[in-house]
């Protein structure tokens, strides 16, 4: 046995229980008010200090509605099917990632936005690339990960599930689009994820809790004015545009209450949803 292994062996095993004298160790840093309101949840917040990652088609960082990016990488497979993560010099190849970034920037103007491009270099390995991109995002410790995409490939479901749980336990809030069509896809169906569908209201801060999951929240996703490649704007519809609205609200909540876990963020979203008491 090596010295290191011997040391490991002497350490007491992590027991998932709470002895009486350890209750103080898990004291919560703050108490929530009797009624959680939007004012308490994110009043005055700008997203400052929060790192949001957009896992998508890339982002046009020169777009005036997006602003400077923290970083931009592209994830792809090389000829031997190895994952390659490199600096993204191409920007957005479709427009969608730029739209998502612009929506986040509009609602949480001072958050930091990073781009992980998982689309654009061939499609045979797209499930593998999506998985690698998400793994990279989780490893980088982003506070909020916006995923306006999903995969229908069942073989990827288990690995995505593990990743979603890892994100959840290490305090990365994973916000994912529910599918617009009645198909089985992942990762939005996992309960460790904040899943988002669309409503037709025009207020970007209107969002609803759905008491009949798997879709848990509805955000603004119809006729959204959004940034697009080439410095343009378009009017866009789809769950993939509802998702960055909710991701941005999560960023606001976390910038005001950085101690919150993803479980607590989801609770705050529930309590401040437009069809629940705290929306006033």
């Amino acid at each position, binding site marked *: 046995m090596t010295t290191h292994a011997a040391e490991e062996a002497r350490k007491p095993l992590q027991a998932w229980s709470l002895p009486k004298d350890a209750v103080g160790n898990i004291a919560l840093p703050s108490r929530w008010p009797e009624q959680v309101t939007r004012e308490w949840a994110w009043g005055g917040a700008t997203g400052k200090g929060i790192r949001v990652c957009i896992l998508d088609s890339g982002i046009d960082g020169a777009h005036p509605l997006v602003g400077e990016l923290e970083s931009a990488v592209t994830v792809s497979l090389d000829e031997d099917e190895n994952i390659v993560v490199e600096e993204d010099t191409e920007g957005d190849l479709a427009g969608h990632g730029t739209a998502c970034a612009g929506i986040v920037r509009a609602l949480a103007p001072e958050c930091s936005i990073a781009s992980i491009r998982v689309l654009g270099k061939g499609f045979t390995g797209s499930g593998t690339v999506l998985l690698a991109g998400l793994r990279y995002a989780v490893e980088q410790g982003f506070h909020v990960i916006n995923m306006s995409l999903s995969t229908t490939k069942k073989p990827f479901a288990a690995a995505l599930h593990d990743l979603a749980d890892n994100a959840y336990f290490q305090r990365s809030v994973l916000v994912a689009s529910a599918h617009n069509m009645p198909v089985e896809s992942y990762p939005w169906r996992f309960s460790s994820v904040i899943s988002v569908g*669309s409503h037709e209201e025009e207020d970007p801060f209107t969002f609803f809790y759905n008491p009949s999951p798997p879709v848990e929240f509805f955000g603004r996703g119809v006729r959204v004015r959004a940034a697009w490649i080439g410095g343009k704007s378009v009017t866009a*519809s789809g769950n993939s545009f509802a998702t960055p609205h909710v991701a941005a609200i999560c960023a606001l909540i976390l910038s005001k209450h950085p101690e919150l876990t993803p479980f607590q963020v989801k609770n705050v979203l529930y309590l401040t949803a437009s069809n629940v008491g705290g929306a006033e």
Partner: protein
Amino acid sequence: MTSDNDVRAAVAAGVVGSGDAYRELLAAIVEVARSIFGAKASSILLLDEDTEELVFEAVVGEGEGDLLGMRFPAGHGIAGWVLATRTPLVIEDVRSDPRFATDVAEGTGYVPSGLMAAPLLHEERALGVLEVLDRPEQSAFSLAEMDLLGLFANQAAIAVDLLLRARQAERLLDGRDDELASVARLASIVAELQDERREAGIRLLGELADTLGGKR
């Protein structure tokens, strides 16, 4: 003829020409989609997995004459995004940006100002994309239309799956047995005949079989 060959001949009879029928079905789907949405054009693009390109398989409306059969890399543009993410998308008010919908624009010079696109999903596979271009500007898009688009895409995906199966079966038959393909063509022709000509055709084939193979 062995019973195995009987089966193969029957399969071949069903396959030959069915690709054309499924292509007609795709054309009918885009025609109905365009009409229901009051759009200027509609198209179905199929993914060619070997070349990673999207191919216009059915087109109606603007660009109809030029786009059919045209290919472009599947990794770019809105159709590529929809295919890769398997997620429908509606983009409007684009206002003449040629980088938008480059697939259509490069082929025809026609630059749509808006499009709806949905993936053609069959089981775990994304087979292609259904596009509806330039809905009337005065009608605001709603979630009900997104649902309708999804329904069309599901129907188109079934037709595309059948088309791909037919093509695969045709390739198999062509590769394995030219003589069998001839039999299949003959069976297909007889199946198309009407009334007396059909009866005569079947009688003739029966006598041919008796002559060649002896009565069983």
